[in-house]
Protein backbone atom coordinates (compact mmCIF):
# COMPACT_ATOMS: atom_id res chain seq x y z
CA UNK A 1 0.00 0.00 0.00
CA UNK A 2 0.97 3.48 -0.73
CA UNK A 3 1.90 6.01 1.92
CA UNK A 4 0.19 8.93 0.26
CA UNK A 5 -3.24 7.37 0.50
CA UNK A 6 -5.38 9.07 3.06
CA UNK A 7 -8.75 8.26 4.51
CA UNK A 8 -10.35 10.97 2.42
CA UNK A 9 -9.56 8.86 -0.63
CA UNK A 10 -11.43 5.93 0.82
CA UNK A 11 -14.47 8.14 1.13
CA UNK A 12 -14.56 8.09 -2.66
CA UNK A 13 -16.03 4.61 -2.58
CA UNK A 14 -18.23 5.10 0.44
CA UNK A 15 -21.67 4.60 -0.94
CA UNK A 16 -23.26 7.91 -1.69
CA UNK A 17 -26.92 8.13 -2.48
CA UNK A 18 -26.43 8.36 -6.22
CA UNK A 19 -29.88 8.67 -7.63
CA UNK A 20 -30.63 6.07 -10.22
CA UNK A 21 -31.30 7.59 -13.61
CA UNK A 22 -34.50 7.19 -15.52
CA UNK A 23 -34.73 3.67 -17.00
CA UNK A 24 -34.61 5.01 -20.55
CA UNK A 25 -31.49 7.12 -19.93
CA UNK A 26 -29.94 4.13 -18.18
CA UNK A 27 -30.63 1.86 -21.14
CA UNK A 28 -29.41 4.39 -23.70
CA UNK A 29 -26.22 4.79 -21.71
CA UNK A 30 -25.86 1.01 -21.60
CA UNK A 31 -26.42 0.69 -25.35
CA UNK A 32 -23.74 3.29 -25.99
CA UNK A 33 -21.33 1.54 -23.61
CA UNK A 34 -21.81 -1.85 -25.25
CA UNK A 35 -21.44 -0.34 -28.71
CA UNK A 36 -18.29 1.49 -27.63
CA UNK A 37 -16.77 -1.75 -26.38
CA UNK A 38 -17.31 -3.41 -29.76
CA UNK A 39 -15.74 -0.45 -31.53
CA UNK A 40 -12.70 -0.48 -29.22
CA UNK A 41 -12.28 -4.20 -29.78
CA UNK A 42 -12.63 -3.74 -33.52
CA UNK A 43 -9.89 -1.16 -33.51
CA UNK A 44 -7.74 -3.43 -31.36
CA UNK A 45 -8.20 -6.31 -33.80
CA UNK A 46 -7.16 -4.31 -36.86
CA UNK A 47 -5.16 -7.31 -38.06
CA UNK A 48 -8.29 -9.43 -38.12
CA UNK A 49 -10.05 -6.67 -40.02
CA UNK A 50 -7.38 -6.87 -42.69
CA UNK A 51 -7.40 -10.67 -42.53
CA UNK A 52 -11.07 -10.89 -43.33
CA UNK A 53 -10.43 -8.54 -46.24
CA UNK A 54 -8.74 -11.42 -48.07
CA UNK A 55 -11.73 -13.72 -48.56
CA UNK A 56 -13.84 -11.21 -50.55
CA UNK A 57 -10.82 -10.47 -52.71
CA UNK A 58 -10.51 -14.16 -53.56
CA UNK A 59 -14.12 -14.18 -54.72
CA UNK A 60 -13.80 -10.95 -56.68
CA UNK A 61 -10.52 -11.56 -58.44
CA UNK A 62 -10.14 -15.33 -58.67
CA UNK A 63 -13.72 -16.57 -58.96
CA UNK A 64 -14.83 -13.43 -60.76
CA UNK A 65 -11.71 -13.25 -62.91
CA UNK A 66 -11.96 -16.91 -63.85
CA UNK A 67 -15.63 -16.90 -64.75
CA UNK A 68 -16.03 -13.55 -66.43
CA UNK A 69 -14.40 -14.42 -69.83
CA UNK A 70 -16.83 -17.36 -70.15
CA UNK A 71 -19.94 -15.59 -69.01
CA UNK A 72 -19.69 -12.49 -71.10
CA UNK A 73 -22.16 -9.83 -70.17
CA UNK A 74 -24.90 -10.52 -67.67
CA UNK A 75 -28.36 -9.08 -67.66
CA UNK A 76 -31.03 -9.83 -65.15
CA UNK A 77 -34.70 -9.86 -66.11
CA UNK A 78 -36.08 -6.65 -67.49
CA UNK A 79 -34.54 -4.19 -65.08
CA UNK A 80 -31.57 -2.27 -66.34
CA UNK A 81 -28.85 -3.14 -68.75
CA UNK A 82 -26.09 -5.71 -68.71
CA UNK A 83 -22.73 -5.93 -66.96
CA UNK A 84 -19.53 -7.93 -66.98
CA UNK A 85 -19.55 -10.76 -64.43
CA UNK A 86 -17.04 -9.13 -62.07
CA UNK A 87 -19.09 -5.94 -61.94
CA UNK A 88 -22.19 -8.06 -61.38
CA UNK A 89 -20.45 -10.00 -58.62
CA UNK A 90 -19.06 -6.93 -56.85
CA UNK A 91 -22.22 -5.80 -54.98
CA UNK A 92 -22.84 -9.41 -53.97
CA UNK A 93 -19.41 -9.67 -52.41
CA UNK A 94 -19.87 -6.38 -50.55
CA UNK A 95 -23.06 -7.93 -49.19
CA UNK A 96 -21.24 -11.15 -48.30
CA UNK A 97 -18.63 -9.23 -46.38
CA UNK A 98 -21.33 -7.52 -44.31
CA UNK A 99 -23.24 -10.78 -43.88
CA UNK A 100 -20.29 -12.76 -42.52
CA UNK A 101 -18.98 -10.03 -40.24
CA UNK A 102 -22.39 -9.26 -38.79
CA UNK A 103 -23.27 -12.91 -38.20
CA UNK A 104 -19.99 -13.52 -36.38
CA UNK A 105 -20.41 -10.37 -34.32
CA UNK A 106 -23.81 -11.64 -33.19
CA UNK A 107 -22.67 -15.16 -32.45
CA UNK A 108 -19.73 -13.67 -30.50
CA UNK A 109 -22.17 -13.44 -27.60
CA UNK A 110 -21.23 -17.11 -27.10
CA UNK A 111 -17.62 -16.14 -26.48
CA UNK A 112 -18.73 -13.46 -24.07
CA UNK A 113 -20.56 -16.15 -22.18
CA UNK A 114 -17.64 -18.56 -22.32
CA UNK A 115 -15.14 -16.08 -20.91
CA UNK A 116 -17.68 -14.98 -18.30
CA UNK A 117 -17.94 -11.40 -19.49
CA UNK A 118 -21.63 -11.76 -20.30
CA UNK A 119 -22.33 -12.09 -16.57
CA UNK A 120 -20.75 -8.70 -15.92
CA UNK A 121 -23.18 -7.26 -18.46
CA UNK A 122 -26.19 -9.17 -17.15
CA UNK A 123 -25.81 -8.02 -13.53
CA UNK A 124 -25.48 -4.39 -14.57
CA UNK A 125 -28.51 -2.16 -14.00
CA UNK A 126 -29.86 -2.15 -17.54
CA UNK A 127 -32.53 -4.13 -19.34
CA UNK A 128 -31.73 -7.13 -21.46
CA UNK A 129 -33.38 -5.41 -24.39
CA UNK A 130 -30.70 -2.72 -24.12
CA UNK A 131 -28.01 -5.42 -24.07
CA UNK A 132 -29.31 -6.87 -27.34
CA UNK A 133 -29.67 -3.47 -29.00
CA UNK A 134 -26.14 -2.46 -27.98
CA UNK A 135 -24.82 -5.70 -29.40
CA UNK A 136 -26.77 -5.30 -32.65
CA UNK A 137 -25.47 -1.76 -33.14
CA UNK A 138 -21.92 -2.86 -32.38
CA UNK A 139 -22.09 -5.74 -34.84
CA UNK A 140 -23.65 -3.55 -37.52
CA UNK A 141 -20.93 -0.90 -37.15
CA UNK A 142 -18.32 -3.59 -37.39
CA UNK A 143 -19.82 -5.12 -40.51
CA UNK A 144 -20.49 -1.84 -42.31
CA UNK A 145 -16.84 -0.94 -41.81
CA UNK A 146 -15.78 -4.29 -43.17
CA UNK A 147 -18.13 -4.01 -46.12
CA UNK A 148 -16.99 -0.43 -46.67
CA UNK A 149 -13.42 -1.62 -47.12
CA UNK A 150 -14.62 -3.68 -50.10
CA UNK A 151 -17.00 -1.02 -51.34
CA UNK A 152 -14.23 1.51 -51.96
CA UNK A 153 -12.78 -0.85 -54.61
CA UNK A 154 -15.70 -0.09 -56.97
CA UNK A 155 -13.61 1.86 -59.53
CA UNK A 156 -11.63 -1.34 -60.22
CA UNK A 157 -14.79 -2.92 -61.60
CA UNK A 158 -15.77 -0.02 -63.86
CA UNK A 159 -18.73 0.93 -61.69
CA UNK A 160 -19.69 4.60 -61.54
CA UNK A 161 -22.21 5.11 -58.75
CA UNK A 162 -23.15 8.69 -57.84
CA UNK A 163 -22.50 9.96 -54.32
CA UNK A 164 -26.16 9.52 -53.54
CA UNK A 165 -25.99 5.92 -54.72
CA UNK A 166 -22.93 5.32 -52.54
CA UNK A 167 -24.77 6.74 -49.54
CA UNK A 168 -27.73 4.49 -50.23
CA UNK A 169 -25.35 1.54 -50.57
CA UNK A 170 -24.08 2.34 -47.06
CA UNK A 171 -27.63 2.51 -45.82
CA UNK A 172 -28.36 -0.92 -47.29
CA UNK A 173 -25.19 -2.32 -45.72
CA UNK A 174 -26.36 -0.97 -42.40
CA UNK A 175 -29.74 -2.69 -42.83
CA UNK A 176 -28.05 -6.00 -43.69
CA UNK A 177 -25.61 -5.57 -40.81
CA UNK A 178 -28.35 -4.91 -38.25
CA UNK A 179 -30.48 -7.81 -39.48
CA UNK A 180 -27.64 -10.30 -39.58
CA UNK A 181 -26.23 -9.35 -36.16
CA UNK A 182 -29.71 -9.98 -34.79
CA UNK A 183 -29.74 -13.37 -36.55
CA UNK A 184 -26.30 -14.10 -35.09
CA UNK A 185 -27.47 -13.24 -31.57
CA UNK A 186 -30.53 -15.37 -32.12
CA UNK A 187 -28.27 -18.31 -32.91
CA UNK A 188 -25.80 -17.49 -30.15
CA UNK A 189 -28.28 -17.11 -27.29
CA UNK A 190 -28.99 -20.80 -27.01
CA UNK A 191 -25.50 -21.97 -27.81
CA UNK A 192 -23.44 -22.78 -24.76
CA UNK A 193 -20.10 -23.35 -26.43
CA UNK A 194 -18.39 -22.13 -29.54
CA UNK A 195 -18.31 -25.69 -30.86
CA UNK A 196 -21.57 -25.32 -32.70
CA UNK A 197 -20.01 -22.53 -34.63
CA UNK A 198 -18.91 -24.39 -37.76
CA UNK A 199 -22.27 -26.10 -37.90
CA UNK A 200 -23.99 -22.72 -37.91
CA UNK A 201 -21.62 -21.47 -40.55
CA UNK A 202 -22.34 -24.39 -42.85
CA UNK A 203 -26.04 -24.75 -42.22
CA UNK A 204 -27.17 -21.15 -41.97
CA UNK A 205 -24.69 -18.46 -42.95
CA UNK A 206 -23.31 -20.03 -46.11
CA UNK A 207 -26.78 -20.98 -47.44
CA UNK A 208 -27.93 -17.39 -46.81
CA UNK A 209 -25.02 -16.23 -48.93
CA UNK A 210 -25.39 -18.77 -51.76
CA UNK A 211 -29.16 -18.31 -52.04
CA UNK A 212 -28.96 -14.53 -52.12
CA UNK A 213 -28.11 -14.12 -55.78
CA UNK A 214 -24.75 -12.64 -54.89
CA UNK A 215 -23.09 -15.03 -57.34
CA UNK A 216 -25.71 -15.45 -60.08
CA UNK A 217 -28.70 -13.64 -61.61
CA UNK A 218 -32.07 -14.48 -60.11
CA UNK A 219 -34.02 -14.91 -63.34
CA UNK A 220 -34.16 -18.37 -64.91
CA UNK A 221 -33.45 -20.17 -61.64
CA UNK A 222 -34.77 -23.73 -61.14
CA UNK A 223 -38.11 -23.54 -59.38
CA UNK A 224 -36.97 -24.82 -55.96
CA UNK A 225 -33.99 -22.49 -55.93
CA UNK A 226 -36.14 -19.56 -56.86
CA UNK A 227 -38.43 -20.24 -53.89
CA UNK A 228 -35.53 -20.70 -51.47
CA UNK A 229 -33.95 -17.48 -52.63
CA UNK A 230 -37.17 -15.54 -52.03
CA UNK A 231 -37.12 -16.65 -48.38
CA UNK A 232 -33.57 -15.40 -47.84
CA UNK A 233 -33.42 -11.83 -46.45
CA UNK A 234 -29.98 -11.43 -48.02
CA UNK A 235 -31.56 -11.68 -51.49
CA UNK A 236 -33.22 -8.31 -51.02
CA UNK A 237 -30.12 -6.73 -49.55
CA UNK A 238 -27.93 -7.88 -52.42
CA UNK A 239 -30.56 -6.75 -54.93
CA UNK A 240 -30.63 -3.26 -53.40
CA UNK A 241 -26.84 -3.06 -53.34
CA UNK A 242 -26.67 -4.08 -56.98
CA UNK A 243 -29.31 -1.52 -57.78
CA UNK A 244 -27.36 1.23 -56.05
CA UNK A 245 -23.91 0.30 -57.35
CA UNK A 246 -24.52 -1.23 -60.77
CA UNK A 247 -27.97 0.00 -61.71
CA UNK A 248 -29.57 -3.41 -62.31
CA UNK A 249 -32.09 -5.05 -60.03
CA UNK A 250 -34.59 -7.88 -59.90
CA UNK A 251 -37.16 -6.65 -57.37
CA UNK A 252 -38.51 -3.12 -56.97
CA UNK A 253 -36.88 -0.85 -54.40
CA UNK A 254 -40.09 -0.87 -52.37
CA UNK A 255 -40.23 -4.68 -52.24
CA UNK A 256 -36.56 -4.85 -51.27
CA UNK A 257 -36.78 -2.20 -48.56
CA UNK A 258 -40.03 -3.40 -47.04
CA UNK A 259 -38.83 -7.01 -46.93
CA UNK A 260 -35.51 -6.03 -45.34
CA UNK A 261 -37.18 -3.85 -42.76
CA UNK A 262 -39.65 -6.62 -42.02
CA UNK A 263 -36.83 -9.14 -41.49
CA UNK A 264 -34.87 -6.66 -39.37
CA UNK A 265 -37.81 -6.01 -37.04
CA UNK A 266 -38.72 -9.69 -36.81
CA UNK A 267 -35.16 -10.84 -36.11
CA UNK A 268 -34.45 -8.08 -33.57
CA UNK A 269 -37.66 -8.71 -31.70
CA UNK A 270 -37.08 -12.44 -31.73
CA UNK A 271 -33.54 -12.11 -30.40
CA UNK A 272 -34.66 -9.66 -27.69
CA UNK A 273 -37.41 -12.09 -26.77
CA UNK A 274 -35.11 -15.12 -26.59
CA UNK A 275 -32.43 -13.21 -24.73
CA UNK A 276 -34.96 -12.03 -22.17
CA UNK A 277 -36.05 -15.59 -21.54
CA UNK A 278 -32.62 -17.19 -21.38
CA UNK A 279 -31.32 -17.66 -17.85
Amino acid at each position, binding site marked *: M*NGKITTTDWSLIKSSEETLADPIIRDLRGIYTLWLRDVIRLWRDRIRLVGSFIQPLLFLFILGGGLSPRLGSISQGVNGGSLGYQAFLFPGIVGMSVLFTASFAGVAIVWDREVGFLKEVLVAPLSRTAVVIGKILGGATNSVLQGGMILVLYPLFHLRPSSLQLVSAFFVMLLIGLTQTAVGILLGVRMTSSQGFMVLMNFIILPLFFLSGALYPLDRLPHWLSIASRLDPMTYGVDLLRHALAGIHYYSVTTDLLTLIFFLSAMSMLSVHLFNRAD
Partner: protein
Amino acid sequence: MISVTNLVKVYRSKAGDRTAVNDISFHVGTGEFFSFLGPNGAGKTTTIGMMVALLAPSSGKILIDGLDVVESPHQVRQRIGIIFQDPSLDDRLSAWENLEFHGRLYGISGPIRKKRGEFLLDIMGLTERKNDLVRTFSGGMKRRLEIVRGLIHAPKVLILDEPTLGLDPHSRRIVWEYIHSVRKEVGMTVFLTTHYLEEADGSDRVGIINKGKIVALDTPGQLKKSVGPEVLNVRVQDRDSMKKYIIDTIPEIRDSIREEPDGSLSFSMGSHLASPWEFLKYLPFPIIEASIRRPNLDDVFIQYTGNNLSDNPGNKIAGDGA
Protein backbone atom coordinates in the same frame (compact mmCIF):
# COMPACT_ATOMS: atom_id res chain seq x y z
CA MET B 1 -28.78 -4.71 4.73
CA ILE B 2 -29.60 -8.17 3.36
CA SER B 3 -32.71 -9.98 4.42
CA VAL B 4 -33.57 -13.38 2.98
CA THR B 5 -36.80 -15.14 3.95
CA ASN B 6 -37.83 -18.68 3.06
CA LEU B 7 -35.88 -18.61 -0.17
CA VAL B 8 -36.34 -21.62 -2.47
CA LYS B 9 -34.90 -22.36 -5.89
CA VAL B 10 -35.99 -25.44 -7.80
CA TYR B 11 -34.41 -26.15 -11.17
CA ARG B 12 -36.98 -27.83 -13.33
CA SER B 13 -35.91 -30.07 -16.16
CA LYS B 14 -37.18 -33.08 -18.03
CA ALA B 15 -34.80 -35.27 -16.06
CA GLY B 16 -36.55 -34.22 -12.85
CA ASP B 17 -36.65 -31.30 -10.45
CA ARG B 18 -33.62 -30.42 -8.41
CA THR B 19 -33.90 -28.24 -5.34
CA ALA B 20 -30.72 -26.17 -5.20
CA VAL B 21 -31.81 -23.86 -2.39
CA ASN B 22 -34.25 -25.31 0.08
CA ASP B 23 -36.06 -22.78 2.24
CA ILE B 24 -33.26 -20.66 3.67
CA SER B 25 -33.62 -17.50 5.76
CA PHE B 26 -30.94 -15.18 7.12
CA HIS B 27 -30.18 -11.52 7.79
CA VAL B 28 -26.97 -9.63 7.29
CA GLY B 29 -26.58 -6.35 9.17
CA THR B 30 -25.11 -3.16 7.75
CA GLY B 31 -21.33 -3.36 7.80
CA GLU B 32 -21.36 -7.01 8.73
CA PHE B 33 -19.00 -9.57 7.20
CA PHE B 34 -21.11 -12.65 6.60
CA SER B 35 -19.94 -15.96 5.13
CA PHE B 36 -21.59 -18.93 3.57
CA LEU B 37 -19.43 -21.98 4.13
CA GLY B 38 -20.19 -25.15 2.23
CA PRO B 39 -19.03 -27.58 -0.43
CA ASN B 40 -19.62 -27.11 -4.15
CA GLY B 41 -23.21 -27.70 -5.10
CA ALA B 42 -24.45 -26.64 -1.66
CA GLY B 43 -26.47 -23.80 -3.17
CA LYS B 44 -24.13 -20.87 -2.51
CA THR B 45 -23.84 -19.60 -6.07
CA THR B 46 -27.55 -20.15 -6.70
CA THR B 47 -28.34 -17.98 -3.67
CA ILE B 48 -26.09 -15.24 -5.02
CA GLY B 49 -27.69 -15.56 -8.46
CA MET B 50 -31.04 -14.77 -6.86
CA MET B 51 -29.61 -11.90 -4.80
CA VAL B 52 -28.45 -10.12 -7.96
CA ALA B 53 -31.62 -10.96 -9.92
CA LEU B 54 -29.89 -13.25 -12.40
CA LEU B 55 -32.13 -16.11 -11.28
CA ALA B 56 -35.76 -15.90 -10.31
CA PRO B 57 -36.53 -17.43 -6.89
CA SER B 58 -39.06 -20.28 -6.95
CA SER B 59 -40.45 -18.79 -3.77
CA GLY B 60 -39.37 -16.62 -0.88
CA LYS B 61 -38.23 -13.03 -0.61
CA ILE B 62 -34.94 -11.15 -0.74
CA LEU B 63 -34.61 -7.57 0.43
CA ILE B 64 -31.40 -5.64 -0.10
CA ASP B 65 -31.18 -2.22 1.48
CA GLY B 66 -34.94 -2.47 1.95
CA LEU B 67 -35.59 -3.13 -1.74
CA ASP B 68 -37.23 -6.26 -3.08
CA VAL B 69 -34.89 -7.89 -5.59
CA VAL B 70 -37.67 -9.20 -7.82
CA GLU B 71 -39.56 -5.90 -7.89
CA SER B 72 -36.62 -3.50 -8.32
CA PRO B 73 -33.75 -5.54 -9.77
CA HIS B 74 -31.88 -2.55 -11.20
CA GLN B 75 -32.01 -0.48 -8.01
CA VAL B 76 -30.69 -3.52 -6.16
CA ARG B 77 -27.92 -4.14 -8.69
CA GLN B 78 -26.82 -0.52 -8.40
CA ARG B 79 -26.18 -1.19 -4.70
CA ILE B 80 -24.24 -4.42 -5.21
CA GLY B 81 -20.65 -5.01 -6.22
CA ILE B 82 -20.08 -8.62 -7.17
CA ILE B 83 -16.98 -10.71 -7.72
CA PHE B 84 -17.99 -13.86 -9.54
CA GLN B 85 -16.52 -17.28 -8.96
CA ASP B 86 -15.15 -17.38 -12.52
CA PRO B 87 -13.38 -14.50 -14.22
CA SER B 88 -15.71 -12.05 -15.95
CA LEU B 89 -13.35 -9.51 -17.50
CA ASP B 90 -13.03 -8.71 -21.18
CA ASP B 91 -9.47 -9.84 -21.70
CA ARG B 92 -9.19 -8.07 -25.05
CA LEU B 93 -9.64 -4.74 -23.31
CA SER B 94 -7.13 -3.04 -21.05
CA ALA B 95 -7.63 -2.91 -17.30
CA TRP B 96 -8.69 0.71 -17.54
CA GLU B 97 -11.13 0.04 -20.38
CA ASN B 98 -12.76 -2.67 -18.29
CA LEU B 99 -13.22 -0.18 -15.46
CA GLU B 100 -14.58 2.47 -17.81
CA PHE B 101 -17.03 -0.02 -19.26
CA HIS B 102 -18.29 -0.91 -15.80
CA GLY B 103 -18.49 2.68 -14.58
CA ARG B 104 -20.47 3.73 -17.64
CA LEU B 105 -22.93 0.86 -17.27
CA TYR B 106 -23.55 1.92 -13.69
CA GLY B 107 -23.97 5.55 -14.66
CA ILE B 108 -20.90 6.93 -12.90
CA SER B 109 -19.78 10.26 -14.36
CA GLY B 110 -16.42 10.56 -16.10
CA PRO B 111 -14.51 12.52 -13.42
CA ILE B 112 -15.72 10.24 -10.61
CA ARG B 113 -14.88 7.11 -12.63
CA LYS B 114 -11.39 8.46 -13.09
CA LYS B 115 -10.88 9.42 -9.45
CA ARG B 116 -12.19 6.16 -8.05
CA GLY B 117 -10.48 4.05 -10.68
CA GLU B 118 -7.07 5.60 -10.12
CA PHE B 119 -7.39 5.43 -6.37
CA LEU B 120 -8.49 1.79 -6.31
CA LEU B 121 -5.90 0.66 -8.86
CA ASP B 122 -3.31 2.26 -6.63
CA ILE B 123 -4.63 0.47 -3.53
CA MET B 124 -4.63 -2.88 -5.34
CA GLY B 125 -1.17 -2.29 -6.77
CA LEU B 126 -2.26 -2.30 -10.41
CA THR B 127 -1.50 1.29 -11.43
CA GLU B 128 1.46 0.34 -13.57
CA ARG B 129 -0.56 -2.22 -15.52
CA LYS B 130 -3.49 0.11 -16.05
CA ASN B 131 -3.18 0.26 -19.84
CA ASP B 132 -2.17 -3.36 -20.41
CA LEU B 133 -4.58 -5.84 -21.94
CA VAL B 134 -6.19 -8.02 -19.30
CA ARG B 135 -5.13 -11.16 -21.17
CA THR B 136 -1.57 -10.50 -20.05
CA PHE B 137 -2.61 -10.51 -16.36
CA SER B 138 -2.01 -13.34 -13.90
CA GLY B 139 -4.95 -14.96 -12.09
CA GLY B 140 -4.28 -12.95 -8.96
CA MET B 141 -4.09 -9.66 -10.85
CA LYS B 142 -7.36 -10.38 -12.63
CA ARG B 143 -9.01 -11.00 -9.28
CA ARG B 144 -7.68 -7.74 -7.88
CA LEU B 145 -8.91 -5.91 -10.97
CA GLU B 146 -12.34 -7.47 -10.52
CA ILE B 147 -12.42 -6.19 -6.96
CA VAL B 148 -11.52 -2.71 -8.22
CA ARG B 149 -14.25 -2.97 -10.82
CA GLY B 150 -16.82 -4.16 -8.28
CA LEU B 151 -16.14 -1.06 -6.18
CA ILE B 152 -16.22 1.55 -8.96
CA HIS B 153 -19.91 2.30 -8.40
CA ALA B 154 -19.46 2.50 -4.60
CA PRO B 155 -21.82 -0.34 -3.74
CA LYS B 156 -23.36 -0.82 -0.32
CA VAL B 157 -22.88 -4.57 -0.43
CA LEU B 158 -19.87 -6.43 -1.76
CA ILE B 159 -20.65 -10.00 -2.80
CA LEU B 160 -17.70 -12.33 -3.15
CA ASP B 161 -18.40 -15.74 -4.65
CA GLU B 162 -15.37 -17.92 -3.88
CA PRO B 163 -13.07 -14.96 -4.55
CA THR B 164 -9.82 -16.88 -4.21
CA LEU B 165 -10.76 -20.06 -6.06
CA GLY B 166 -7.87 -21.28 -8.17
CA LEU B 167 -5.38 -18.75 -6.80
CA ASP B 168 -2.03 -19.71 -5.31
CA PRO B 169 -1.60 -19.13 -1.55
CA HIS B 170 0.40 -15.95 -2.06
CA SER B 171 -2.24 -14.35 -4.32
CA ARG B 172 -4.96 -15.48 -1.94
CA ARG B 173 -3.29 -13.69 0.90
CA ILE B 174 -2.90 -10.49 -1.12
CA VAL B 175 -6.52 -10.56 -2.27
CA TRP B 176 -7.63 -10.94 1.33
CA GLU B 177 -5.47 -8.08 2.53
CA TYR B 178 -7.22 -5.85 0.03
CA ILE B 179 -10.70 -7.06 0.91
CA HIS B 180 -9.98 -6.48 4.58
CA SER B 181 -8.72 -2.95 4.01
CA VAL B 182 -11.87 -2.13 2.01
CA ARG B 183 -13.93 -3.45 4.87
CA LYS B 184 -11.97 -1.63 7.51
CA GLU B 185 -11.84 1.70 5.70
CA VAL B 186 -15.28 1.82 4.14
CA GLY B 187 -17.32 -0.35 6.49
CA MET B 188 -18.95 -2.07 3.55
CA THR B 189 -21.30 -5.00 4.08
CA VAL B 190 -19.59 -8.13 2.74
CA PHE B 191 -21.27 -11.36 1.75
CA LEU B 192 -18.79 -14.15 1.09
CA THR B 193 -19.21 -17.70 -0.09
CA THR B 194 -16.29 -20.03 0.33
CA HIS B 195 -15.23 -23.56 1.05
CA TYR B 196 -11.99 -22.40 2.63
CA LEU B 197 -12.30 -22.57 6.40
CA GLU B 198 -9.72 -19.88 7.10
CA GLU B 199 -11.66 -17.41 4.99
CA ALA B 200 -14.94 -18.01 6.78
CA ASP B 201 -13.13 -17.91 10.11
CA GLY B 202 -12.39 -14.21 9.69
CA SER B 203 -16.03 -13.24 9.27
CA ASP B 204 -18.48 -11.89 11.83
CA ARG B 205 -20.95 -14.70 11.31
CA VAL B 206 -20.89 -17.95 9.36
CA GLY B 207 -23.80 -19.81 7.86
CA ILE B 208 -22.98 -23.44 7.16
CA ILE B 209 -24.84 -24.51 4.07
CA ASN B 210 -25.19 -28.05 2.82
CA LYS B 211 -27.54 -29.50 0.21
CA GLY B 212 -29.46 -26.23 -0.08
CA LYS B 213 -30.10 -25.82 3.65
CA ILE B 214 -28.49 -23.67 6.32
CA VAL B 215 -27.57 -26.22 8.96
CA ALA B 216 -25.90 -23.83 11.41
CA LEU B 217 -25.53 -20.07 11.68
CA ASP B 218 -23.54 -18.22 14.31
CA THR B 219 -20.24 -16.49 15.00
CA PRO B 220 -17.23 -18.69 14.25
CA GLY B 221 -16.45 -18.75 17.98
CA GLN B 222 -19.89 -19.95 19.00
CA LEU B 223 -19.96 -22.55 16.25
CA LYS B 224 -16.66 -23.99 17.42
CA LYS B 225 -17.87 -23.96 20.99
CA SER B 226 -20.90 -25.99 19.95
CA VAL B 227 -18.60 -28.80 18.80
CA GLY B 228 -17.09 -29.12 22.27
CA PRO B 229 -14.10 -27.81 24.13
CA GLU B 230 -11.52 -29.87 22.27
CA VAL B 231 -10.85 -32.27 19.47
CA LEU B 232 -8.71 -35.37 19.93
CA ASN B 233 -6.50 -36.73 17.26
CA VAL B 234 -5.27 -40.29 17.86
CA ARG B 235 -3.16 -42.57 15.73
CA VAL B 236 -3.10 -46.32 16.37
CA GLN B 237 -2.14 -49.35 14.32
CA ASP B 238 -5.68 -50.61 13.77
CA ARG B 239 -7.80 -47.59 12.98
CA ASP B 240 -11.00 -49.45 12.08
CA SER B 241 -11.12 -51.32 15.38
CA MET B 242 -10.58 -48.11 17.28
CA LYS B 243 -13.36 -46.44 15.37
CA LYS B 244 -15.70 -49.31 16.23
CA TYR B 245 -14.59 -49.14 19.87
CA ILE B 246 -15.31 -45.40 20.07
CA ILE B 247 -18.73 -45.77 18.49
CA ASP B 248 -19.57 -48.60 20.90
CA THR B 249 -18.39 -46.71 24.00
CA ILE B 250 -19.68 -43.21 23.24
CA PRO B 251 -22.30 -43.51 20.45
CA GLU B 252 -23.18 -39.80 20.89
CA ILE B 253 -19.98 -38.62 19.23
CA ARG B 254 -20.34 -40.83 16.19
CA ASP B 255 -20.97 -37.87 13.86
CA SER B 256 -17.79 -36.11 14.84
CA ILE B 257 -15.42 -38.96 13.98
CA ARG B 258 -13.23 -38.20 11.02
CA GLU B 259 -10.62 -40.31 9.29
CA GLU B 260 -7.57 -38.16 8.65
CA PRO B 261 -5.41 -38.60 5.57
CA ASP B 262 -2.40 -39.51 7.75
CA GLY B 263 -4.23 -42.58 9.07
CA SER B 264 -5.31 -41.11 12.39
CA LEU B 265 -8.79 -40.51 13.77
CA SER B 266 -10.14 -37.16 14.91
CA PHE B 267 -13.17 -36.79 17.11
CA SER B 268 -14.72 -34.35 19.50
CA MET B 269 -15.55 -35.59 22.96
CA GLY B 270 -18.11 -32.90 23.58
CA SER B 271 -19.32 -33.12 27.17
CA HIS B 272 -19.63 -36.86 27.05
CA LEU B 273 -16.51 -37.59 29.01
CA ALA B 274 -14.96 -35.72 31.85
CA SER B 275 -11.43 -35.77 30.57
CA PRO B 276 -9.87 -36.75 27.28
CA TRP B 277 -6.83 -37.96 29.22
CA GLU B 278 -8.99 -40.53 31.01
CA PHE B 279 -10.28 -41.71 27.68
CA LEU B 280 -6.80 -42.11 26.26
CA LYS B 281 -5.64 -43.93 29.38
CA TYR B 282 -8.29 -46.62 29.01
CA LEU B 283 -8.07 -46.94 25.24
CA PRO B 284 -7.37 -50.67 24.63
CA PHE B 285 -4.98 -49.99 21.73
CA PRO B 286 -1.35 -49.00 21.81
CA ILE B 287 -1.25 -45.28 20.89
CA ILE B 288 1.34 -44.25 18.34
CA GLU B 289 0.53 -40.57 18.56
CA ALA B 290 -2.15 -38.44 20.18
CA SER B 291 -2.87 -34.74 20.35
CA ILE B 292 -5.57 -32.44 21.59
CA ARG B 293 -6.51 -29.22 19.86
CA ARG B 294 -9.22 -26.63 19.84
CA PRO B 295 -12.00 -27.22 17.31
CA ASN B 296 -11.89 -25.46 13.95
CA LEU B 297 -14.65 -24.79 11.44
CA ASP B 298 -13.91 -28.07 9.68
CA ASP B 299 -14.93 -29.87 12.87
CA VAL B 300 -18.05 -27.70 12.98
CA PHE B 301 -18.80 -28.59 9.41
CA ILE B 302 -18.47 -32.32 10.10
CA GLN B 303 -20.57 -32.02 13.20
CA TYR B 304 -23.47 -30.45 11.30
CA THR B 305 -23.29 -32.23 7.96
CA GLY B 306 -21.55 -35.51 8.62
CA ASN B 307 -19.22 -34.72 5.73
CA ASN B 308 -15.70 -33.55 5.59
CA LEU B 309 -15.52 -30.26 3.75
CA SER B 310 -12.11 -30.94 2.29
CA ASP B 311 -13.01 -34.51 1.31
CA ASN B 312 -15.64 -33.29 -1.08
CA PRO B 313 -14.49 -34.41 -4.52
CA GLY B 314 -15.90 -31.28 -6.14
CA ASN B 315 -13.68 -29.12 -3.98
CA LYS B 316 -10.59 -31.01 -4.98
CA ILE B 317 -11.25 -30.38 -8.65
CA ALA B 318 -12.03 -26.74 -8.01
CA GLY B 319 -9.01 -26.37 -5.74
CA ASP B 320 -6.78 -27.56 -8.55
CA GLY B 321 -7.44 -24.29 -10.25
CA ALA B 322 -10.49 -24.94 -12.40
